[in-house]
């Protein structure tokens, strides 16, 4: 049952992702992307990362995606028209070279995954043996908070400043040019 739900999510994610890349209309793609992100959040939960799933929804769906949609919608009409790309075809013709490349990569990765076949690295087998694995009953949020404020404090701060810098940069970049 658990596996079935997982696969449902996985199918949702992959199917929507495929649609995202094959649709002509960018606006539709963007909404489908929304579904992909939700699906991903679901998959995170299956990996016992509930906080990550919530963050995913909040940051991506609530931030990134809204940012994207709003950014375009609020900018100018031509770009919007360009994005909507009123082509008669519903699906874009796949670019065979890139398709080949992607399938190639998929094949190689699948091959790798099959070859690997749960030959866990030593640290994983060690943790499994010692029982140091996350269980569904664990309070992840609590643990994460502690870790952020202790062990990962420096990266946390760095990433905060980085985020700030990125936002300021983004704001600077997207400002209107001076008329002069």
């Amino acid at each position: 049952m658990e596996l079935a739900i997982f696969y449902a999510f996985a199918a949702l994610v992959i199917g929507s992702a495929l649609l995202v890349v094959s649709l002509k209309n960018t606006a539709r793609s963007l909404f489908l992307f929304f579904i992909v992100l939700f699906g991903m959040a679901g998959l995170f939960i299956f990996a016992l990362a509930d906080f990550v799933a919530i963050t995913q929804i909040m940051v991506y769906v609530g931030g990134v995606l809204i940012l994207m949609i709003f950014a375009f919608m609020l900018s100018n009409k031509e770009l919007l028209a360009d994005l909507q790309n009123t082509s008669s075809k519903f699906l874009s013709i796949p670019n065979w070279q890139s398709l080949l490349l992607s399938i190639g990569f998929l094949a190689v990765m699948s091959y790798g995954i099959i070859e690997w076949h749960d030959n866990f690295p030593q640290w994983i087998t060690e943790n499994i043996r010692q029982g140091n694995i996350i269980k569904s009953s664990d309070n992840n949020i609590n643990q994460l908070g502690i870790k952020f404020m202790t062990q990962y404090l420096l990266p946390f701060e760095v990433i905060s400043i980085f985020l700030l810098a990125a936002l300021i940069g983004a704001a600077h970049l997207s400002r209107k040019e001076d008329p002069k």
Partner: protein
Amino acid sequence: MSDLLNISPIIGSMLVVLLPFLAFLIQAILGKRSQSGNIALVSIILSTIFSLIFVFAEVWKQEPISANVSWFTIGTHTFTLGILLNNLTVLMQLIVCIIALPVHIYSKSYMKGDPGIHRYWMYLSLFCFAMLGLTISSNLLMMYIFWELVGFASYLLIGFWFTKESAVQANKKAFIINRIGDLGFLLGIASVYSMYGSLNLVELFGKDGLFYSLPASSDGWLTFTGICFFIGAMAKSAQFPLHVWLPDAMEGPTAVSSLIHAATMVAAGVFLLSTVFPLFNQTVLLTIAIIGCITALISAYFAISQTDIKKILAFSTISQLGFMVVAVGVGAWDAAMFHLATHAFFKCLLFLSAGAIIHEMAHLKEANKLDIDPQDINNMGGLKKWMPKTFILMSIASLALAGFPLTSGFLSKDAILISAFEWAAQLNGLYFLIPITLTLVSILTAFYIGRLIFKVFFGELKIKVERIHLHEANLSMLGPMIFLGICSIFLVFSWNPIAYHHSFILTGFSITYPFAEIHSLHIILPIILTISSAIAWVIGWNWYVKGKYPLNSGNKLLDISMNQGYINEFYNKIFVKSTLNLSKGLYWFDQNIVDGFVNFLATIVRNLAHFSAWIDRYIVDGLVNTIAGTAYYIGHLLRWVQNGRLQNYLGFAFTVVLIGIIYLIIK
């Protein structure tokens, strides 16, 4: 005045030669402005006077005089220009002058109104210069020069009416055939030069000349030399195989024919033979006699049936020249010169008379707009009525030609015939053929000239026109003719009308014959000749005047005679055609074989070059190009990667990564 009269013979003879040359130069410069011919006339009058008074009178029967100036030096030999005055040369010079003078006077009215008259006088002066120069040349080279100049002048005069196709053909033929003779002459000169190292006549044949002092080289070469000179004389004097140009040469003005092709130039051959006579050995002399005999016979035969008045006279000239040549051949070259002198006068007169007749006939033709040949004797007849003086003069000349007593021709012809008989008597046997043939020819001569006279002057005018205004020629034409008529009588040459020995020409030369004199011949032969000539005339009278012509026109013999023995056709076919074909063939050979070979080589080389170029381009260069092309395409491929599209870069990067991974997996 005494100074003027003190001209030495050498200077005098130089003046004789140079005056016509001066006239030629002046007329050449003046061109169309000098049409009267007075310049030429004055020059020839002066020449004649000088020749007679200062040269002939001084030198005749005296010691020979010669003067030379060096002309140029080749190697160790110096070639000279010079004048040789002896009996032979001064006589010849005088004859030329005396014949040329009346012809000049005659031409003044005969050629009046011709558009090219200025050229006529120019050419005539040139001819006189060359002919007079020929007579007094002291060496063979100089003689050769004038010899050819004479031919050249004759070429110009034959082709005087250059728009007439037949005249142009005739002058070409005349010059080319004369060229053959010139070659003989030139080779003869070369031969003499290589044997004796000198060309001076005095040095060669004078007293104690090289010819007598040096041992003759091989007899064969001597014969060769003699034959060469004889070929030269043959062409000029129209002897048998080379006689064909003379009848054609009648295309020129009649006055020219009388001067050049009857009296003077054609006699130059005989003059040459006389000049180099010592050179001839027995073989050559016999050849000369035989050729002369053949010539005399066949041309008399051809003369019988000709209808063109000038052609009849032309053949008679050839025939008489044959007589002279026989005389040289039998060793009696003095007789030849004698006949040359007498013949010059009466033949010139015959031509001038014929010219007068043709002149009148041409007027008649123009006045009545007839389409006739004014020279055809079949159109004439009964002219005695209108032109009695011409008739008389022409008759005198004809009698002289036939050798009738009391004429000059009688004397000279007898001299030749009797000498020939005496010569034959010396040698016996078949040699008698020659004098007998000559006798026959004499009778034939009487017959054909009788035919001419009868057809032209007796009977009725053959062409029927309403108004006939034929009249005597005017005085400037008649005067010269009368002068020549007088000269055709025995008195001019000898006080004795019967015995030729007393003529001043023969006494002047006084050569000794290699054969004995036979006295009885001197009486018998003239009688036989005269009687047979008379018989021939009676027959002619019956045939042509009485109209009892016994032969029909289809007669084979007559046909051959009419067509001059088909010799022209024969030459045309054998020599001219074959030479032309040979030349065409050779040109083909040149174009296709010689040049073809060159071009073939060029083609081979070019093809080789093409082949190697092909190899170079496609094999050698192809290899290089392939390498270069590969590099280029690889470069191009790489360049194509750098197309500035980020996605492509990314794609390539991933492709490489993918390939790398696959490589790792496979490895």
